[in-house]
């Protein structure tokens, strides 16, 4: 009875083998998705416009191999539809399977020549194919059959005759053993135990596991039963045995836990060596194996068999929790995760060594984690370290218990470490646990020995994280695309002008103005902003006075130590105050120091550090006056234009007045217009002067913070704007000379009187020379069913806008044209920048590597180079 299903690993490279006319394409189409099939005929067609052009074979196969490689790299099952009857044709495919750690599978379609001839004869394109072709294919195929296993095929399905081929009705895709993505934990991941049974019991106790002795009635009984705390599961990272005092007990406990499902276990190199011994292979009993073997001698004879069976069943690594967590004894690079090959297994067991031998006679390990960029958290052991350290979303939790260190567990997803000290030194290490600290990586920069591994690593970001087209996943928007040309611009700005990227936790988004007002003589009016939010279903907004200064982000610590600890920056002071492009606001270091010290004192006076349980803070603020930063711009552009106008226009007026006495037609109109322009130029000069005052020192600066962005371990995007306003108002009280609280009002949008009052407030503010106001939804992050809403809209005053649109903007003929403006692109940009800004800061407080934060910050800067009307 021919089989009607074929079982395959879910990730495999399936190589169909059969002569022309054997029915491979039909078979493939019947059982696989069309996109899974890569066919040599189709590739010939693509490169030669003719599926039968044998002269195109070389190019066609290059293309085929390229396509196969791309699919395997991305972890997709792939079927190769080609004759594949010769070993030399299969060889490169098997090599690809190895390269991408995918299992190669052979399916042989072995049909009689007569059938193949018949089928070819029915196809017009193959009608003229000589009978010798099929014969030769069959001959090659017969020769191949013997060798398939040797060539490296792990699964071979030989379908003899048409009947067997047609009988196959379905393909069953078996999950890879390492694929446990559906198990979401929570987990308690335990590092190398090495026979330290007592410490293991203590650790399990701390973790809430109950360990009880069990009567051993049967040889299969392990004598111990462990009950996990509700819902939790232990994961052992291997190296259960060797060197320590009680390897058999450790094995019993772990075997028991794995058997009843309260634990998972991956093998370590010591476990596998023991397995080889138990399998009767000759191994040298060194590195602690001798002790294990001696301990095993006092165990019942059947125990050895149980251990052998247990170890034999261990899978090199596990991919857990939807792909977010990977556990392997020695770690695993991203391209090997969830794959199956000898190389994957070897890496998981031994890691990678450079081939060099260090001063202690041990192999120098290649530190794969330093280059790790994968999405999954990798928890591993194998290499004892004095303290577990996060590095690029990996962590080594082998803290060398058997060498007198500690036994460590990582609680996932909490990311908490639980640790138990070793009762004694059971074995002297060949090299001290802290040897790596003594031989720091060559590119570690001077004076930074006090930084964590991650912080040292973060001193150099990789260009790959910022150049080219980037696609950034954010929690507020599904994905933000950064175009290459924008990244190009941002790279220059970031490199030439920005602060050290470690300071740059956040860049503020751009802000769109309200839609253009219909009222005559006005470009912007609050009515549109309020209506915008109301129409989108927002019930309340917060209207904040807009300060006319420079937008700054302030990152400041309680002291330099806080900056070293949290940001990994040494010798750069207690904080920085930077602009929207990441540039230091201050150019005078003394003024900078004085400013930051005074702000720090204000935070201290306000009891901020204790209240928020933090030693640093990130604020979004406006720094006044405008002239503090923009003095040169004001002189070169704003004042210059007024000077030019005031020099030229009176002379124009004089000449026109003189001409008017000659009663020339049209001169009166020109004169009137000139006088209007002269008045406008005067108003314009008044407008820019309002935002300038001389800055002779600290006492002339004012900081108006309006968002409390983040403190240790926390962002405040979940707090409403009223909370931010009140919190910062309280802070401002601590130093009213430096800090300015921002006047604001909460406006319920369905209360017409309140809406009217808000408009009235704006009218008064702007009439008194204020820049205008910012309208924000009450919640920091506001969205409706269609998605994210604008985080803020600005609404600028009539007088203020002349320093944006020029002195003459209100003159007839100008304002009408200026009203033709489109805020759409700006709003789109504001949303994307907002999503990126929030994402970057969230990543930072979650302790992610700098590159993940920098990617977002860089993205905001890149988006800022997009071409939108700069007046908006």
């Amino acid at each position: 009875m021919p089989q009607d299903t074929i079982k395959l690993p879910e990730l495999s490279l399936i190589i169909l083998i059969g002569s022309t006319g054997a029915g491979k394409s039909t078979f493939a189409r019947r059982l696989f998705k069309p996109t899974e099939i890569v066919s040599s005929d189709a590739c010939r067609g693509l490169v030669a416009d003719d599926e039968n052009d044998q002269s195109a074979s070389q190019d066609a196969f290059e293309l085929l191999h390229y396509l196969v490689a791309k699919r395997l790299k991305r972890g997709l099952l792939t079927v190769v539809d080609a004759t594949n009857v010769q070993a030399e044709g299969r060889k490169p495919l098997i090599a690809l399977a190895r390269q991408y750690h995918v299992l190669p599978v052979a399916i042989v379609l072995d049909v009689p020549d007569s059938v193949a001839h018949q089928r070819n004869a029915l196809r017009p394109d193959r009608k003229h194919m000589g009978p010798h072709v099929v014969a030769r294919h069959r001959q090659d195929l017969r020769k191949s059959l013997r060798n398939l296993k040797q060539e490296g095929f792990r699964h071979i399905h030989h379908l003899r005759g048409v009947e067997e081929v047609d009988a196959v009705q379905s393909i069953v895709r078996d999950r890879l053993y390492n694929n446990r993505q559906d198990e979401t934990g929570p987990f308690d991941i335990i590092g190398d135990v090495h026979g330290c049974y007592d410490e293991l019991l203590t650790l399990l106790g701390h973790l809430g596991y109950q360990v009880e002795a069990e009567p051993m009635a049967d040889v299969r009984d392990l004598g111990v039963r462990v009950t996990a705390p509700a819902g939790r599961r232990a994961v052992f990272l291997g190296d259960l045995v060797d060197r320590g005092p009680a390897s058999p007990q450790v094995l019993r406990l772990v075997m028991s836990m794995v058997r009843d499902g309260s634990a998972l276990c991956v093998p370590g190199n010591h476990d596998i060596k023991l397995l080889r011994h138990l399998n009767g292979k000759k191994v040298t009993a060194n590195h602690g194996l001798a002790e294990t073997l001696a301990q095993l001698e006092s165990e019942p004879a059947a125990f050895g068999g149980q251990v052998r069976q247990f170890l034999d069943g261990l899978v090199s690594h596990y991919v857990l929790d939807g792909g977010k967590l990977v556990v392997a004894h020695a770690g695993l690079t991203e391209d090997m995760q969830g794959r199956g090959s000898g190389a994957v297994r070897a890496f998981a067991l031994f890691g990678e060594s450079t081939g060099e031998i260090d001063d202690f006679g041990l192999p120098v390990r290649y530190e794969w984690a330093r280059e790790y960029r994968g999405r999954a958290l990798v928890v591993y052991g194998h290499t004892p370290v004095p303290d577990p350290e996060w590095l690029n979303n990996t962590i080594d939790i082998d803290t060398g218990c058997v060498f007198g260190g500690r036994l460590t567990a990582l609680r996932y997803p909490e990311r908490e470490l639980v640790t138990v000290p070793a009762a004694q030194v059971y074995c002297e290490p060949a090299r001290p646990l802290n040897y790596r600290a003594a031989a720091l990586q060559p590119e570690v920069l001077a004076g930074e020995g006090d930084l964590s591994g991650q912080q040292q690593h973060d001193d150099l970001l990789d260009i790959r994280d910022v150049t080219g087209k980037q696609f950034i996943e954010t929690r507020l928007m599904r994905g933000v695309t950064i175009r290459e040309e924008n990244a190009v611009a941002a790279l220059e700005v970031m490199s030439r002008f920005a602060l050290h990227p470690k300071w740059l936790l956040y860049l503020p988004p751009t802000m769109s103005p309200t839609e253009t007002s219909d009222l005559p003589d006005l470009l912007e009016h609050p009515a549109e902003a309020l209506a915008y939010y109301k129409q989108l279903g927002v019930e309340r907004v917060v209207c904040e006075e807009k300060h006319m200064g420079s937008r700054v982000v302030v990152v400041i610590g309680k002291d330099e130590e806080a900056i070293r600890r949290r940001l990994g920056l040494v010798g750069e002071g207690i904080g920085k105050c930077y602009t929207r492009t990441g540039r230091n606001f201050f150019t005078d270091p003394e003024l900078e120091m004085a400013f930051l010290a005074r702000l720090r004192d204000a935070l201290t006076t306000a009891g901020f550090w204790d209240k928020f349980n933090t030693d640093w803070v990130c604020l979004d603020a406006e720094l006044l006056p405008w002239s503090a930063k923009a003095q040169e711009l004001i002189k070169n552009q704003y004042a210059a234009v007024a000077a030019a106008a005031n020099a030229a226009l009176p002379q124009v007026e004089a000449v026109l007045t003189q001409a008017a006495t000659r009663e020339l037609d049209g001169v009166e109109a020109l004169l009137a217009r000139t006088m209007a322009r002269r008045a406008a130029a005067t108003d314009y000069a008044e407008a820019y002067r309002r935002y300038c005052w001389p800055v002779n020192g600290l006492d002339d600066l004012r900081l108006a913070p309006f968002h409390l962005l983040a403190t240790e371990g926390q962002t405040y995007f979940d707090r409403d704007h009223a909370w931010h306003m009140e919190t910062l108002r309280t802070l401002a009280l601590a130093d009213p000379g430096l800090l300015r609280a921002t006047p604001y009002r909460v406006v319920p949008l369905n209360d017409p009187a309140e809406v009217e009052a808000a408009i009235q407030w704006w009218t008064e503010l702007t009439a008194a020379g204020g820049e205008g106001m910012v309208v924000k939804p009450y919640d920091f992050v506001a969205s409706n069913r269609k998605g994210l809403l604008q985080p803020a809209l600005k609404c600028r005053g009539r007088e203020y806008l002349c320093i944006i649109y020029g002195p003459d903007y209100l003159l007839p003929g100008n304002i009408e044209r200026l009203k033709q403006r489109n805020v759409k692109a700006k709003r789109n940009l504001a949303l994307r920048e907002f999503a990126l800004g929030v994402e970057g800061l969230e990543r930072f407080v979650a302790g992610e590597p700098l590159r993940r934060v920098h990617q977002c910050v860089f993205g905001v800067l890149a988006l800022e180079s997009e071409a939108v009307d700069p007046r908006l």
Partner: protein
Amino acid sequence: MLLTITTTYSPATDLGYLLHKNPARLQSLEIAGGQAHIFYPEATAERCTAALLLDLDPVGLVRGRAGSSGDGFALEQYVNDRPYVASSFLSAALSKAFGTAMNGTCKDRPNLPEQALPLEVKVAVVSAPGPDWPRRLFEPLGYDVQLETTPLDPTRPEWGDSRYYTLQLRHAGLRLQDVLTHLYVLLPVLDNDKHYYVGENEAEKLLRKGADWLPQHPERDFITRRYLRYLAAYVNPTLKRLLEDEEGAEPTLEAEPVDASAITAPVTAETVAADSPEPKLSLHDQRLQQVADEIYQLGPKRVLDLGCGEGKLLRLLLRQPKIEFILGMDVSHQALSRAAQRLHLDEMPPRQRARLDLIQGSLLYRDERLAGFDAAALVEVIEHLDENRLAALEGVVFGQARPAHVFVTSPNADYNQLFEKLNAGEFRHTDHRFEWTRAEFAAWAAGVAERHGYQLRLESMGEEVAGVGAPSQMAVFDVA
């Protein structure tokens, strides 16, 4: 913007014939960027004044332009001085309104154009880099020059005077067409900005309009350079053609930096120094030659030019046959495009093209593309980075890329006292973040060498002066 031309020629109203504009009417015409109005505030036989009033449309100027986001060009902004300042807009208006007069034709009074007239010109206002410039441009042509200054902001006396002047020119006897031509060429030169793209025919225009007077003008280099601003490539050929008859005059000019507008101008003391009359290799060219020579001597196969700019060193390196591959990197995309242009990358024959690649990159980011090179040059690069970012550069170049030889040059601050135009504490270039003395440079280089296993050699670049050393200094690192 207002231009008035007054004559006391008798009869003064002949001005109307000359200008081909009727004194009894106000005439308005469309010009690029707005309107021009021509009228006569006075027209008597004794004294006649013609006024050209430009009414530029500030909204149209901005809206009409393609592209956005400031490259510093004034027209990107609504807040700009164009409506008030005599600029290339005025030149365009002059040729449209008074084209016949400028060509020296007058239908009704054929002999009048050749007549030298007493003339008085007033321009409100011109923008000039300093009060001496209007004089330097107009006095050699025989004008009496009067200037009226304008404070930047009368409420801020500490800000001083603005760059705007009311310019008054008087000449006892000159043909009107000459005055118009002078204004046509020299007003945009003072203003140093052009509202239109400068193409090759701009050079032709200058040759035509300046043929009679520019070759003898003492400021002809300045005038040519600024008139043809944005177009360095035309400067030398144009000058050459202008001076063809003068024997052996072969001026060397450093091209002015492209973004040399007053606001963003990185004015360099070195280029100022290089403006000195003796024809000699500029300091920068000397530096590059020295670096190139030293690199040749090492016989490297693969060479990096980090911060390659517009590709001057790349050109020198390309000439060296033993070098198999050169990678030029710069953080500025604009500089790279210009390098590609100057090296004719697109038209390079394939074999030569395969020897050179240009990439955008930053010395502050780890970059795999920089690995596997025998030598790297960083010519006048480090001083463009904030000092506290040098650690990153060090990590990228010496820690990660690790070429066998690294050449780093930087200005020698000890030498700065010899630059007359440089005040104490000022840097040679506005983008320099620091300039190190020889001792500071040596200390930094020694630290780098020690931390990364290189041997260090220090050299001076350019002519040494006792006590202060040479203008530039170089550190050569050889992997130990």
